[in-house]
């Protein structure tokens, strides 16, 4: 028993004094080693002891083993933590250095999403001029002069000198239409590209035209003097209203998620017949999101197509509106503020 007391004192003191992991492991072998450990030896000798002594020494020796193991483990953990503190030169808990990451404008990102979805459905992406002729912006789209239907599009007109006509390259096609007016304006929608594209291409085709458009109107939280539209046009021998619905269902599900609910209802745009509008259900409300319809025969005629041979659908959507709904943006003017506190959020 006295042996055991002495061993306990000796062992615990040695563990306490130990300065590194290596020494600690040596102590573990010295006292608890399977072959020659000092305590192991005592435990092993229990069998040969008289019953009386065994009853006394046995529990004490086992208790010591447990105590010693615990002391070794505790000390070992302590040493490991201390050794870390000593080895590391850099305080990795300091904040990370900021990397200069840029941000694409939210409208660029939304336009890209829209383009990707339509490209996945085999739509080609084209562009067109922002300064347009009255012919393509209105006349060719069955929006007659001096008719209040034209008031749906408040227009910025360009001051024109005698020589000031639009880029001649763009005019060659319209000249064939015996243009009387070549009055220039800032396009009020992306729809002029319908006729421009059809003049140069044969159906069947399906295209989208993203781009900036302009309206002469007072600005407020939901109106801007310039904004972005994406025009769509699909023409073929049999392209019908059911096809339009299919394409739109797919598009909105990909843009807003599978569960999005659409509502189709009648509307009027002079260049489509039938004309429709699409609403989406968002946070319990129906929100207007797109104007569309089947291409009006007059528009086919303006592009020198035979309307009896062809059918098609056209649609237009506002990028700002989509972004405002999807990202909960309260004011359209934020898009044109150039405010980095806005831009860098996306």
């Amino acid at each position: 028993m006295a042996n055991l007391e002495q061993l306990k004192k000796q062992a615990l003191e040695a563990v306490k004094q130990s300065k590194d992991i290596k020494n600690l492991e040596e102590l573990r072998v010295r006292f608890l080693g399977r072959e020659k450990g000092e305590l192991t030896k005592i435990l092993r000798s229990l069998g040969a002891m008289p019953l009386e002594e065994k009853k006394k020494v046995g529990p004490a020796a086992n208790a010591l083993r447990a105590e010693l193991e615990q002391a070794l483990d505790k000390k070992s953990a302590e040493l490991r933590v201390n050794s870390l503190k000593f080895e590391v030169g850099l305080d990795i808990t300091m904040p990370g250095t900021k990397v200069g990451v840029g941000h694409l404008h939210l409208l660029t990102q939304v336009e890209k999403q829209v383009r990707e979805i339509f490209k996945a459905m085999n739509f080609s992406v084209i562009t067109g001029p922002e300064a347009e002729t009255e012919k393509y912006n209105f006349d060719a789209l069955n929006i007659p002069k001096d008719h209040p239907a034209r008031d749906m599009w408040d227009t910025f007109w360009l001051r024109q000198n005698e020589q000031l006509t639009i880029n001649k390259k763009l005019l060659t096609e319209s000249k064939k239409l015996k243009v009387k007016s070549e009055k220039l304006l800032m396009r009020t929608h992306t729809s002029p590209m319908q006729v421009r594209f059809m003049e140069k291409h044969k159906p069947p085709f399906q295209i989208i035209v993203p781009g900036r458009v302009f309206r002469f109107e007072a600005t407020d939280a939901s109106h801007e003097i310039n904004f972005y539209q994406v025009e769509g046009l699909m023409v073929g021998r049999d392209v019908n209203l059911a096809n339009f619905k299919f394409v739109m269902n797919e598009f909105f599900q990909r843009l807003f998620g599978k569960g999005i609910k659409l509502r189709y209802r009648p509307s009027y745009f002079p260049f489509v017949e039938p004309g429709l509008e699409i609403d989406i259900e968002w946070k319990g409300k129906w929100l207007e999101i797109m104007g569309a319809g089947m291409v009006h025969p007059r528009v086919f005629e303006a592009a020198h197509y035979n309307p009896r041979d062809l059918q098609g659908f056209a649609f237009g959507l506002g990028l700002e509106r989509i972004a405002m709904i999807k990202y909960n943006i309260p004011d359209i003017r934020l898009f044109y503020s150039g405010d980095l506190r806005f831009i860098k959020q996306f």
Partner: protein
Amino acid sequence: MKFSFNLIKKLAPGQYDEKLLTEKLNLHSFETTDLGNGVLDISVPANRFSDIASHLGVALEVSVIFKTKLSDFLSKMPKFDSKLSGPSVEVQDKNLCPRYMAAFVSGVKVGPSPKWLKDILEDCGIRSINNVVDVMNYVMLEIGQPMHAFDADKLKGGIVVRKAKKGEKIETIDGQKFDLDSDTLVIADSKQPLAIAGIKGGKSSEVTDKTKNILVEAANFNGVNIYKSSRRLGLRTDASNRFMHDLSPALVEMAMHRALALLRELATANAGQADGKDGKPTDVYPKKQSKKLLELNTGKINKLIGYDFNEKELADLFSRLGFKLEGKLWQVPEWRMDINNLEDLAEEVARFSDYNKLPALPPAVALGVAEEAEEISLVDKVSGFLKGAGFSESYNYSFISKEEAGALPKGIFGAEKPVELLNPISNQSAYLRDSLAPGLLRNLKDNSRFYSDMKIFEMGKIFGEGRSGVKETLALSAVISGKNSALEIKGLADSLFTQLGLTEYLTPDLNIVSDFLKSGEALRIETPEHQVLGYLGSLKDFKNGAIMEIDLEKLLKEVDEEREFEPIAKYPAIERDISILVSKSVRTGPILNFLYSVSPKLVEDVDLIDYYEDSKLGANHKSLTFRIVFRSEDHTLTDPEADREIAIINQILTDKFNAELR
């Protein structure tokens, strides 16, 4: 346009309330909002004023939607007194006034209108005046035909519908005075204009409490003429708004009969001829509205909609809408000015059957490759690169002020002068932007309250007036604020060009005075053939700011995306650093060019690795350290070879640039 729910329901009785009606009208007909208190706001499509800018027209839609019958109280004909005789009517301009109907009404008792009539007017936002004027307005609401009543005793001679004469004036009922011109149509008596046709009545023949005899007018006017006159006079009224949208002349007769019946009932008036012979109102209607006959081609309608309607259900629908079968063709009701072709018929079919219930079917098309405009791929590539380089993208307005226009170094993008708007919204946006710079400079200033180091770019169309007209160009501009910004933007341009595949370009001094670039710290960016691609340099008015702007369309023509593998160097390189002291007036560009060209076979790369100015060097001197990398393609270069090159270089640096070796 406001509508009374009660009147709609009176005309088309059925089992529906405001809520259900609003929902159904939105789904099948047009945008409708329930304003509460029995008032509906209907946004009347521009092509449907003739039929649905009236309670009767809306009621017809309602009767088709709910499959109910229209009330027949409208078909009551008024009684006429053939002994009455009133003023004559002469229509001089039959193109601008296709139909003019007038009735002389005597024994009118002017007084207040009954409550039911006042209520409907109020629902629709019209103030009650007296029973005669109220009947005119009520009939307009009910039938959609604007009406007018003249005090017949105030007329001098008969009615003439003609263009105004130069110098003629009129004072309208509300006391406004207008000078008329010869494009404006007027209703006149033998002396003076009594009303601006289709727009507003005049004071001189106004119906008052004392009025005994009236002349009731229902007429049809040319829409374009009313539109133009209304704009010219700056006078838009309920009447002009309706006429400018093209009304059917058929409404004239319906409205006249309705008005006369109501006047008899509400003003105990006795109606009769104006100058006719049979006791009926005068009706000048020389050229009748032409009959529209359309084929109801079920196959074509189904092909357009993508559904299988049967002929019978279509025939049912069009009968309910008032179409009449004539032989094999269907006659379009006169009031439906919007229906002219098969597509119009298809719309009726589709909307009444509910777009939401129609099928959605994938289109069957030949597989082709979806293309993307070159411009768009380029924009994607450039914006991706700039984002990676830490730039954030801004969108600015396409419009700038007169002061901002023309600030661009002259002729840099080929335009001669900026393009002006005819009708700008403000002086701040009177011109089309001829450069992206004004917008980005504003962004720098505005954001400097919150950010110190900024990197911003924009891509967009800029405009200029060139010899061939309005020139529209896709441009890129980027700005940096912070230390060393000008050289950073120069480095950015270089990396961008390399990335895009433009390997060779020049950056000579700009040498043009600019409003916003620091003179002497601006470069032109051009192709080896001296095609100007853009410019870059330090900003004059923004501390530590720099800008570059590039014509992306020109750039697109120059870039070559073909790349070819270049063998990785086989032999090791030798690096040598040279430090020199030169006068501040000596620029680094020429030294670099010299170092590159001195021994093209052996010099692989040259870099400026250190630069400083210090009073210890002398006030007018600067120290430059270049690292030159020598490498040979065919053998391992030896130190003596490199030493020999360095010796030559040192000699020339001393001779040519007056450099002091350090």
